[in-house]
């Protein structure tokens, strides 16, 4: 897999430009469309860094993810996986000749990047908001633990794992 940092231009302030890019990613419903739209808006505002994931042989797009660095408690440095999207053609099956799903390899690559960053600056945790509760077993299989469960008070499910 190839990971390419994307510079989202100011043209993405135009809803039509965002809509065209989102459509090219084949979202399966309004829910995914909404998340992808928000990703481009956040990337244009420089709140997150956007990466495209491509197949090395064909250069075709596999998915995308957005990252940010945060220090929510002013003590612990976190890498936040803001959104991870896999194109429909690559979901629910192993990637290429591996025994891993595309999403697992993307998380693994993010973990590798976090480990490299942590050798230079303090970075202790990788965290993410779960887009859907049904994804929980997949992340627990990788070692993530629940930081916050959805409740009447909080709708978001947060997971985290140690960088090292």
């Amino acid at each position, binding site marked *: 897999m190839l990971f390419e940092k994307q510079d989202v231009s100011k043209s993405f302030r135009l809803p039509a430009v965002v809509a065209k890019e989102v459509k090219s990613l084949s979202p399966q419903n309004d829910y995914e469309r909404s998340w992808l739209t*928000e990703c481009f808006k956040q990337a244009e505002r420089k709140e997150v860094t956007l990466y495209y994931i491509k197949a090395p042989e064909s250069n075709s797009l596999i998915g995308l993810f957005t990252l940010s660095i*945060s220090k929510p408690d002013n003590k612990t440095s976190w890498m*936040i996986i803001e959104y991870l999207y896999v194109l429909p053609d690559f979901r629910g099956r192993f990637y290429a000749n591996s025994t891993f799903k595309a999403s*697992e390899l993307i998380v*693994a690559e993010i*973990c590798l990047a976090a480990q490299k960053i942590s050798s230079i600056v303090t970075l202790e945790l990788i965290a993410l908001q779960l887009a859907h509760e049904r994804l929980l077993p997949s992340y627990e299989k990788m070692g993530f633990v629940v930081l916050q469960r*959805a*409740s009447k008070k909080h709708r978001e499910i*947060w997971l985290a794992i*140690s960088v090292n």
Partner: protein
Amino acid sequence: MTKSSTDKQEKPSNIVPVFPAAAIKRAKAAKMSGHLLDAIQYIKSQVKNQ
């Protein structure tokens, strides 16, 4: 059928909540599983072969 409030989020929020100290301690102790470490090894082997 009513959608559960825990079903899914409408759109991402990039505001990280302040979590309880106990939750953060648990996260710091959460190590990458063998499955994830195997995935990392797979990526490293692919890079070597390129």
